[in-house]
């Protein structure tokens, strides 16, 4: 490192005691050995691909062979590509719906699991199981249930709209994807809410009791505001995950019927297999920017919460 770094260090007097012998001298080489190989690997595995991708989004490359820069052509073409626009519309709609379902259900389950109930440990054990199962396998199990069992139940009970598979209906297939994604995502969200609820001191409720607040009032006026930070975290973490939806959709509908349930991630991969390398890299770059905006939103929101 440069000498300026060392001078700054001395001014701040960052270390004390025995470790002082390092101050002003060089960093022990072993620390470089601890850090540099990982940095190099990380750069090769993530930074280089990210930069290559962005560069190629301004070219006409099909993935192999010669290519030349073509400016913003890919980006302009993307803006009027119905397949891409539809995938963004689907991905956002699906993510918003899933975030709402997951958070409402997980919050209510967490309230239940922190109440005076029987079999608390056993119930919590069961509710967490979906978290440890592979998304694509969950999707195949539910694919079978949606295609065979649910219509069978619909026939037996004479419920018309249940007789056909949800997955074959272009207007409703997304509902199945929301349900299965929620099934898998609820455990993680639930555990965060349980941690949040347990952090609310009990005497707050005692005081509310004395003041004559009803259970509903306590839930909305005390519990919710006190765990608001956890709600924000769960919403944004979930939303970021759901935007990348891939495994469960592959197992349930594979993007169909037609392209009704094709997520952005699936469009990028499918386009690549179809030879649209640079075009899909433009798509990926836009997707990247969207992800960054959401992450920045997360930082500003959570930081705001903490200061309250």
């Amino acid at each position: 490192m440069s000498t300026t770094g060392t001078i700054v260090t001395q001014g701040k007097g960052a270390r004390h005691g025995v470790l002082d012998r390092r101050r002003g001298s060089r960093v022990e080489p072993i620390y470089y050995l601890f850090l540099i190989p990982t940095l190099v690997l990380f750069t090769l595995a993530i930074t280089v691909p990210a930069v290559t991708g962005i560069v190629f989004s301004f070219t006409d490359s099909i993935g192999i062979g010669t290519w030349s820069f073509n400016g913003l052509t890919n980006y302009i073409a993307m803006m009027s590509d119905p397949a891409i626009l539809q995938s963004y519309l689907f991905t956002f709609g699906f993510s918003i719906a899933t975030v709402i379902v997951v958070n409402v259900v997980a919050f209510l389950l967490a309230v239940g699991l922190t109440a005076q109930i029987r079999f608390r440990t056993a119930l919590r054990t069961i509710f967490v199981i979906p978290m440890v199962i592979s998304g694509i396998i969950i999707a195949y199990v539910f694919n079978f249930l949606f295609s065979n069992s649910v219509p069978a139940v619909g026939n037996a009970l004479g419920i018309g709209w249940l007789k056909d598979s949800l997955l074959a209906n272009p207007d409703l297939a997304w509902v199945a994807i929301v349900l299965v994604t929620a099934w898998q995502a609820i455990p993680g969200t639930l555990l965060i809410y349980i941690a949040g609820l347990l952090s609310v001191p009990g005497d707050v409720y005692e005081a509310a009791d004395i003041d004559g607040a009803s259970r509903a009032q306590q839930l909305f006026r005390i519990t919710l505001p006190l765990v608001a930070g956890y709600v924000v975290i769960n919403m944004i973490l979930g939303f970021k995950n759901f935007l990348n939806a891939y495994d469960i959709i592959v197992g349930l509908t594979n993007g169909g019927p037609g392209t009704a349930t094709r997520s952005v991630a699936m469009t990028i991969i499918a386009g690549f297999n179809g030879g649209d390398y640079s075009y899909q890299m433009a798509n990926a770059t836009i997707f990247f920017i969207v992800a960054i905006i959401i992450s920045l939103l997360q930082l500003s929101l959570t930081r705001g919460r903490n200061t309250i």
Partner: protein
Amino acid sequence: MSTQAMPHPDANATRALTTHRAGKRAPRIRMERVNWTTTIILIACALTVLVPLYVTVSMAFKSTNQAVDGKAFAWPQPFSIEGFIEAWRLTEFPVAAGISLLVTAGTVTATILLAAFASYAIVRNWDRRLFRWSFFYLLAAMFVPFPVVALPQIQLTGRLHLDNPGGVIILATMFQLSFSVLLFTAFLRSIPLELEESARIDGASTWQTFWRIIFPLLAPMSATVGIFAFLYAWNDFMMPSLIISDPSLQTLPVRQNLFQNQFSNNYNVSFASYLMAMAPAIVAYLFTQRWVIAGVTQGAVKG
């Protein structure tokens, strides 16, 4: 990072638990009244988890003749392991499970070691620009979703002959790195320097100090980091399906996708195959759930 100001989950846990709401309208006699309404509602909700698992198990143990009618809720009559035998042979289960195990073990080990090394170097040299910037550089990967870098990674791993489980281990480790470094550095900052100094007075080198003092202290965080890496590496479909080019080297979740067409209507075979793929993680979870739940809570609230 963003939520450190929140009260620690366990801090008030005991108190809150003992004073939590009792019966619906009944006067609060804490710790004694069991809320049966809530208990029953929760048991009903638990069925949404248990029924798909029951269907998986019951379909897997049916004979081919019984399974073909697709009646999900019927009990296996007779019990048959035909499905398992066929799935074992068809999907080359031992090979696929071996590869999944290799990828998972490799990712978990590499993530814990590399992240612990890097975090220790970063925290102990925070006053040096290189180390400080490395921290933010590694953290930045949390903003990069896999689909964004997937296509160039496919090309790069292909060119470097890493289009195999080895490449998946490297990429999975790198994707876990940001989050793991975040957890380790937060924990390392809370370890008092005096602990190390005593070792150093006794003449231990940095390498020895790391292994004798730091790494054992990191154990709870290593468990959290390891659990996240395990769940990701064992269950992921998207990345191995794109990176590993030879289908015979694919992991268990990808095998299910590759053989989905060949399973066709032999539901007992497909469900036996699903069950064999999901069982190891479920069994591991049931035996270690205390740590899994603590780890996930800790990791998610900090991350």
